[in-house]
């Protein structure tokens, strides 16, 4: 199983990657939306993407919109990881094509629950 983590903060990126590795998920990293589009094209079969909202070069929303325009990624779960909790922000994320969102800061258990909702996490994987 392979995930792409898109986050401009190297600290938060490291934490999210650590969470995923603890769930035995391989991780590819990107520091902004543009870099993430490049990484995504290099990945053979990505299973999910965790994406931040506020990033330089290309934001998380712009990234999600760009991915959803590429029909081959239609089934790919895009999880917005954001400090923005107001409903209007979350509505914007879902309208752009996010599959789910998770509030920052999040714990390993909270992330595991979200992946479970998508049927992406089982102990055996």
């Amino acid at each position, binding site marked *: 199983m392979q995930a792409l983590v898109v986050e*401009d*903060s*190297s*600290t*938060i990126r*490291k*934490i999210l990657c*650590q969470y995923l590795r603890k769930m035995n998920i391989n991780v590819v990293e990107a520091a902004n939306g543009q870099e993430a589009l490049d990484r995504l094209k290099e990945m053979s079969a990505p299973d999910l993407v965790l994406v931040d909202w*506020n*990033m*330089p070069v290309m934001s998380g929303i712009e990234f999600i919109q760009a991915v959803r325009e590429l029909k081959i990624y239609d089934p790919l779960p895009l999880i917005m990881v954001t*400090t923005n909790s107001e409903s209007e922000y979350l509505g914007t994320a879902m309208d752009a094509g996010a599959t789910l969102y998770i509030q*920052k*800061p*999040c714990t390993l258990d909270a992330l595991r629950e979200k992946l479970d909702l998508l049927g992406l996490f089982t102990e055996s994987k």
Partner: protein
Amino acid sequence: MTEMEAIVLEFVEEGKEKADNIEHRLIQLEKQPGSRELLAEVFRDVHTIKGATGFLGFTKLGALAHTGETLLVRLRDGLLVTNQEIISALLALVDAIREMLSVIETTGKEGERDYAALIATLARLGKAA
């Protein structure tokens, strides 16, 4: 080094880099006080620091960054106009961030120093019409 110590070290290094960026852009803002681009960049760097504090439990630094972020949102969105008092307060915020990062680097904790006066100043400036 434990995983957590490595992450805290990463946070300190990233925070110092962001503090340098913020200071540099605040100095540029003194010459271009209306630059939304500069304000957006300063906001993003403060936001990044605040975001990481939440994961690491550095609540004092998080509260300080949050107050700065609230002021910066209003500046970025054109609801407030940048002036010298605001720039000075934001430069004081940078100093405080550096100070707390230095304490975290040495002790792993945020330290005892109280930043209530700075938080009150940033909050007052953020509320000004």
